[in-house]
Structure formats: structure tokens, C-alpha cells
């Protein structure tokens, strides 16, 4: 049905190696994004309120990942109730 789904269900050997390279590149990129964290100091935006979460190590990385994961999960969940065939209103 979906293009991405098909790709996943029938992976050919050459695709496997392609995907491995792709993930490798991603991993390197992510590592590159984390490394400078050792040299750059983030300052806490709400220091005066005693909130220093956003100055912790790698905050933006994990916060972004989990926020996106949560949003996708919520969307999936709502989708169960909200999704209809796209001809729904034409009937």
C-alpha cells in the first residue's frame, strides 16, 4: 500500500547494504552533533526560576527525540479515532 512499507517488506541484499551505509552516515552525523557538546556551554534559560534542565548535557538531542516520538505516538493514537476514507464526505 504505502511506498515505504513496500520497501521494508521486500529488502534485497543490495538494499541491505545501502541501508547499512545510510544508518552509518546517520550515526556519524548524530555523533558529530553530540561531540561539540563537550566544548560549548549552554546557559539555562530559566536559571532564575531554578530550572536548569535545558543546560544539561545533550538536552536538545534527547528532548527532540522523545518529543517527536511522543508526537508521533499521539498522532497514531488519535488517528485510530479520526481517520476516515478520503471519500468520506463525498458519500
Amino acid at each position: 500500500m504505502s511506498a515505504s512499507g513496500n520497501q521494508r517488506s521486500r529488502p534485497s541484499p543490495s538494499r541491505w547494504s545501502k541501508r547499512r551505509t545510510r544508518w552509518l552516515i546517520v550515526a556519524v552525523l548524530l555523533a558529530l552533533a553530540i561531540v561539540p557538546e563537550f566544548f560549548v556551554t549552554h546557559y539555562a534559560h530559566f536559571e532564575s526560576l531554578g530550572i536548569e534542565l535545558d543546560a544539561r548535557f545533550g538536552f536538545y538531542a534527547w528532548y527532540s527525540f522523545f518529543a517527536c516520538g511522543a508526537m508521533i505516538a499521539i498522532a497514531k493514537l488519535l488517528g485510530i479515532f479520526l481517520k476516515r476514507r478520503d471519500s468520506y464526505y463525498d458519500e
Partner: protein
Amino acid sequence: MQLDGFMLPPGLILILGAFILPQVEGRVRHALLLALPLLTLLMVWLIPHGSHLTLGLMEYELEPLRSSAEGRLFATVFAVAAFAGGWYALNKATLLELSAAFFYAGSAIGVTFAGDLITLFIYWELMALGSTLVLWANGKQNPRAYPASMRYLLVHLCGGVVLMAGIAGHVYATGSIAFSSMTMTDGLAKWLILAGFLVNVGAPPLSAWIADAYPEASPSGMVFLSAFTTKTAVFVLIVGFPGTEILIYIGLYMVFYGIVYGLLENNLRRLMAYSIVSQVGFMVTAVGIGTELALNGAAAHAFAHIIYKALLLMSAGSVLLMTGKRHCTDLGGLFKHMPITAIAGITGALAISAFPFTSGFVTKSLETAAAYQFAATASDPMLLVWVWFLLTAASAGSFLYVGLKFPWFVFFNKDAGLRPTDPAPHMQYAMWFFAFLCIALGVFPEALYAILPYQNDLLAQPKSYQQYTASHLLSQFQLLLFAGLAFFALLPLLKQTLTISLDVDWIYRRLFKVLGQEFTFKVGDLGGKTEAKIHGRIKRLIAHMHGPSGPRIHWPSGFMVLWVAVLLVGALGLYYLR
């Protein structure tokens, strides 16, 4: 050069242009399409700040030509959007759409120069009319455009009615029609005006009209539609309701509403419509924060958003135009075949995701900065903490549901076997132009900052809006890259389906219909014959009462006389009993 003697509201150039366009053909029309917005832009900048024209109406003084910093900023980007939209549409769009779009753009610019509520209301309604016609102009190509345009018009006319009631009440309470900040006033009228504005901004519960109507327009039509209505509403909120706390909640709702519905959406341009709601939610939240930095942020974000959203829609529109496909599920692997469209789409996607060195980065961060800038001294600091964390999450989310989803499913992913080419040259030029602006604003944000409404803040505290610090760049890269990780890691969950998502518009698109059917169904239970009889009788009754033809269109005289008697006896009886 000063134009003291001869000044007209700049919006009129485009509005009059809308009526000139049908009178000319070919090259002259093309020239006008490009020249009139530029002429408007020139006028916008030649008019010095202040009110220059008064018209007496009843005991009030209309100010149709009040130039302000906020107004000029929005008028500038509106003129630019009309220019690029016209370029993109050039000879692809129908004449009706072009005229309507110019009328629409002119009215939007009229709002930005409105010094009083009545002028504002006039242009507000003209905008509703112009935008409806833009939708309507696509009726021949897309049979769904006409009903969508009528639903759209209905929502906006209802909003207009609420606005009018509010204006009347406000004028009655204050005696002034001036359009200025209403945060100090109180009473029902103020909230009615706010409600009227919020309808156009796409606020809940009526957010659905954007995704319902806009995607039914033509490729160029949606470029026009995305630019004006919601952003004009942001403008009036900036002027009228800065710092109104409820806007924070409304804005945050819009932000996440757009993301969630966007994630579920399969139709490309409807995805873009949801992302309009989400992005405008950022601006509404900023208006709710209401500090000078926040208002600057809202204005700057609106400016940048009009450009990158138009760019995204040009790209999505080109795909639709060249392939005839509008769903993620039907597309894929187009990068090789439509490289320029792809570059435009990716640039727009990066800008909307606030990628460093794009216009989104230098404008959205003003809004997040506004959340923490005065948090310590705010009346409700924890609220602002929440705002900051949520907006930061939403920034990552923007990358997820537009920034990655759109290019990935259209230009990469699996090849869907389509072999289109890039669209006509003028459409490519328009895309190059806006792609250039997206990057240029990101690299040289000073040009945009210089025309923001509140310069004091910018000059006094340069630190608070410093974009390109190592910390900021790093955190933004991390934010985006890990959003990307989430996207690819959870790709199976994002499998696109050929569906739509229910929204509040279900009430007026489905519920009313179902209720009607329910009623007929029950009648049907009585058996075919009875049903036919009842139907016939109802039909005859209607025909009898108000029918267009038929021998007896009049009520029987006896019936009329009966009413006379009823009324007289009623009146006499009432007086007698008293």
C-alpha cells in the same frame, strides 16, 4: 520624495488592478501582474508613518491610510507575496483567479493601513470575498472547489458578523472607532472582536476551514490563499490584543493541532494547510506573551512564514500540476525528474524547520527568546516555562511533519514511476526568487530586523536576539538531527494511508446531513406508499406556500383575515385583561 498632496491607500492599486486585468491581454497583462505589486510596494514605503487621509462617515472619521511600523511590515510582505504569486501564476491561472487574487491581496494590504475599525471591517469582508473567488476560480478543474468555497465563505461571513457586533459594541462603549490596542477596554464587545479575529487566524474550534478549503484551490490559488487571511489576522492581533493571555493557550493548541493532523495527513497540500495552522499558532502564542520582543517575533515570523510557506506550496503545486497526484502515497523519487522543484521544496522545508541560515531560524527564535526573556518578572513565570519547552518541542516537530515528511515522500522514498519534468520557466523563476529570499533573510537577518515594529528593544538588548552563537547553533542542529532520527527510526509508524482526518468541520459537513437523513429514514419506515404520500404533501405544501409557479401562489384570503383577527383579538384581549 514625499507624496503629501497625492496619497491613496496602497491596497487600492491592487484592488483597481483586479478590475483592469480582464480588460487587457497577453503581454500587457503579464506586465501588469508583475508591475502592480511592485508599484504597491513602492507606495507602501513612500507613505510616511501617521494618518494621512480622513473620510467622514456619520459622526465618525475614517482613517483609511494610517501607516504604522507593523502595518508597513505586513504590507511589504503581502506585496512581495502578490508579486511572486503573480509570477508563479502568470499564464497558468484563470483570469478570474488572478483578478480575485489581486483583489484579495489589495484588501489584505488595506487592512494593514486601516486606522479605524470600520475601514478594517470593510477590507476584512472584501478579503473574504476575494479569497472565496480565488477558490471558486478552480471550480472547473476541481468539482470540490465550489462546495469548499461556500463552506469557507460561510465560516468567514459568520466571523465577520461576530466582528461587526463587537465593533458596534466597542464603538458604543468607547465612542471611538480608532483601531488600537484593546487590552485596556473591557466587556463583551472586546471579546466579540477577538473572536472575529480568531476565526480568521484559524483558532479552535474553527481551525478546520483552512485544511478544508485551501487544498481545493488551484496550485497558484493556494499560494495566494496561504499568504493573506491568517497573516492579516495575526497583524490585527498584534495591534489589537498584545499580551492577551488566552492567546498563549490558543496558540499552543494550534501549534500541536497542526502537527498532529499534519502527521496523519496524506494529501500534500492539506499537510501544508495544517502546517499553516501550526506556524500561525507560534505567532498567536507570541502575541499572547505580548512583550516587544514577542511581538517583533510574531511579525518577523509572519514575514518569513509567508515566503517559505508560499515556496513550499509552489513546490507542492508544481508536483500536483506536473503529475496530477496530490497524495504522499502516489508520489516518490521525483528528485531526479523535478530537480528545481525539489530544491525549492527542500529549501522551504529547511526554512520552516528553522534550519540555521534560513529565514525560519532567525525569526522563530525571536519567539522562543521572548518566552524566557522576561520570564523571571512575569506574572505567571511557570506558564512561560511551559511555553518555551512546548515551542522547542514544536520546532522539532515542524521538521518532522513538514521539513522531512514533504521532501521525503515526494522527492525521495521509493520511485513511484512518475516521469514529470520541472514546470514552466516562470514558475521556476518564482520558486528561485522565494528560495533566494528564504536563505537571504537567514544569512542577513539585519535587513528584516531593521523594519520590525519595536526597534528600542532590538537596539537596547542585542544579546537577547543574537542568533548565531555557538550554543544556539549547536542546540538547533541537535534538535533537528534527532528529530530526523526519530523520523527515520519511526518511519513504519508514519506509513501514509489514503485517508482524511475528522475535524470540527464534521459538524457542518456531516452531522447536519446525517440528521436530515435520519429523519427521512424514519418516514421511510412507514412504508413506500405512505412515504411517497407524505413527501408529495410536503412538496405541495412548500410549493403552495412559496412556490415559484403553480396557479395559486397566494395564500387564501381567509387565512390572512384570520391572522388579522388573531392579532386584533390578541391585542384587545391583552389590553382588556391588564
